[in-house]
């Protein structure tokens, strides 16, 4: 009798469990899916539509399949687009070079103070992005604390300036996006099994060989994530160029902002945004194919 009841319970419960099992993945992806739909797909579609419209703010914009806007903006702003990718690449390279030893030192030599060191790394970033950039404007002012002192000591010419140059903009971007590189690097370095490093030493590998042939390859996922997290926002950044830059450091983000907010040329701004996003996506896919999809073992 008991067995029969148990069997019935099992029979009743099974379809429910099966249904729940079937629905679980959909329910789990629902919040993310909705998020993507509302905050990514709809704005992208709207932006695509806007880029193909013609008109003005007073008469309104109408959808006319006006593809030539793309060619117009590319012809007019290709310099700023190329400059954005150049600045973004250089800044990403700088953050990698600066962050790697830093993350390595914290992960391997930080001991019980790792958390403190990480907090120290992140501390300036509790301050607003714009305020931090403005602080650099103050520090790098022509007659400011650094250059003013050097000028007073006659170590640099009076006309020398850093602000309003490419150096200032790239440095600002590199500084502002440093944690986006340092943190993934730290996580990947922290996860490295120390016994692998010990094994390399047991096999008479020198320090540089351990770094080049064991540690660096194992930290590639961190490099991959860090480069993505730094490069993408760096290319689209406009704050550093507008605060630290000059007439010849304008980036594509500044142009998009100007087209949207000053000129009210929404289709041109949307077309530029779309071009930027497309070029970035192509670059990211190529990069992911080259680096990101390999298994770790392939690097060893």
């Amino acid at each position, binding site marked *: 009798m008991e067995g029969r009841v148990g069997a019935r319970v099992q029979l009743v419960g099974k379809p429910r469990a099966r249904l729940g099992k079937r629905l679980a993945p959909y329910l789990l992806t629902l919040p993310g899916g909705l998020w993507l739909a509302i905050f990514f797909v709809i704005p992208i*579609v*709207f932006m*695509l*539509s*806007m880029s*193909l*419209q013609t*008109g*003005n*703010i*007073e*008469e*309104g*914009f*109408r*959808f006319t399949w006006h593809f030539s806007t793309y060619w117009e903006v590319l012809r007019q702003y290709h310099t700023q687009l190329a400059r954005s990718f150049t600045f973004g690449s250089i800044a990403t390279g700088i953050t990698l070079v600066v962050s790697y030893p830093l993350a390595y030192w914290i992960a391997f030599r930080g001991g019980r103070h790792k958390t403190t060191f990480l907090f120290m790394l992140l501390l300036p970033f509790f301050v607003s992005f714009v305020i931090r950039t403005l602080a650099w*404007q*103050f520090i790098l*002012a*022509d*007659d*400011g604390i650094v250059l003013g002192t050097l000028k007073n000591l006659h170590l640099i010419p009076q*006309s020398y*300036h850093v*602000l*309003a140059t490419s150096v200032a903009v790239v440095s600002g971007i590199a500084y502002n996006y440093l944690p986006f590189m340092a943190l993934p690097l730290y996580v990947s370095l922290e996860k490295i099994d120390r016994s692998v490093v010990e094994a390399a030493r047991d096999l008479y590998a020198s320090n540089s060989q351990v770094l080049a042939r064991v540690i660096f390859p194992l930290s590639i996922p961190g490099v991959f994530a860090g480069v993505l997290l730094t490069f993408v926002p760096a290319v689209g950044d406009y704050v550093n160029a507008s605060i630290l*830059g*000059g*007439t*010849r450091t304008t980036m594509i983000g500044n142009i998009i902002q100007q087209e949207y*907010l*000053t*000129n*009210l040329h*929404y289709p041109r701004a949307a077309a530029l945004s779309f071009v930027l996003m497309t070029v970035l996506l192509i670059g990211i896919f190529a990069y992911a194919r080259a680096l990101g999809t390999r298994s770790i073992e392939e690097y060893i």
Partner: protein
Amino acid sequence: MTEQPIDPSVDPALLRGLTQRRFSRRDMLRYAGAGASAAFLAACGVSGTAPKKSPSGASPSAIDYSKYYGDGKPAGILNFENWELYIDEDAKGKHPSLQQFTKETGIKVHYRTDINDNDPFLNSKVIPVLQAGQDTGFDLMVITNGGPVEKLIRLGYLIPLDHSRLTNWAANVDPKTKNPNYDPGNVYTVPWQSGFTGIGYNSKYVKEPPTSFGDLLKPAYKGKVGMFANVYDLPCPALNYMGFDIDKSTPDQWKQAADLVTKADAQGIIRAFYDQNYIYKLEAGDIHISQAWSGDVYIAAAPKDVGGGRVPGGEVRVPERGPDLLARQHVHPHPGTAPQRRHHVHGLRVPAGGRRDDGRFHLVRVPGARGQGLRPEPAQGSGRGQQPSGLPERGGPGPGEGIQDLQVAG
């Protein structure tokens, strides 16, 4: 290979069905999807801001003010959006004029200074918001004469001022600031401050006072020159400098002016194109000479106890071909969805005779002919400075020049 004749007994429709590619359900879905996407893309249009019929130039008596102001009872709070530096300020950073206004009217003032250029402000915080029928959050804002104000009037985004509540405006305001061509009868605008676009510089670095736009192109100031970024104040002085009549200027002349500036830029002479932030660059020593709005430099060069002290050696000069006159105008943005914004504001009063004898800060023009320096002076019952004679005006709006009195309260 020769084509086989079609058997006439075979139904052509059947033949087509047997030989041609079929329209599958998947195709149908695909085409329907593409059609729906195209329709969706087309539906994403942005409706325009069709110019509304506004009572521009209408006699104040013809305007139904209750439509805009209801019963006219003050709401108790005034949200005032202004340009930085364009108000009196004491050593504690307070604004005596606003304090006095509150004392006299009981209306509290939420004062903000988010404007540092017209177009970026209007195009980001005013026009799109009003276009969506929403509330800007501002009861009163200060916009420069000419294009920006004209655009707001044309779009129907300003509400008319009830002149019956501007108790002493008509009697006391400088006649030159009345009845501008972009707002006949001052239906929407009353001047807040006026000045000119000239050449500002720090006399600590620039020993020879500039006389024209051409001074901004000198290689001697390489990397230390600022220019305006907006579409009015950069090209017009350049055109003026080149001897072109702005009102009759041609595209070719604009191109020549653009080439002039571009050449200086290529030589590294121009540091950057600025909004009002140029004044902070002048303060930091990053630029030594710049296109400037007179009011900014006056206040930046004024003594610290009256809110100045930023650029002690600051000077501003009228270009020899004449200044581009400007007037910062008080306007009321349309209340959008916030009818409570319709009330108040009309307590702003112009001091009798345009002068204030309370010893507070005045900015006055040093009497003199065109091109003579303009300096700030602390008010000691000095009143309004003299008007320069024979100065051309920007596009004919007709604001007074050189008056920097704070025309609120009194």
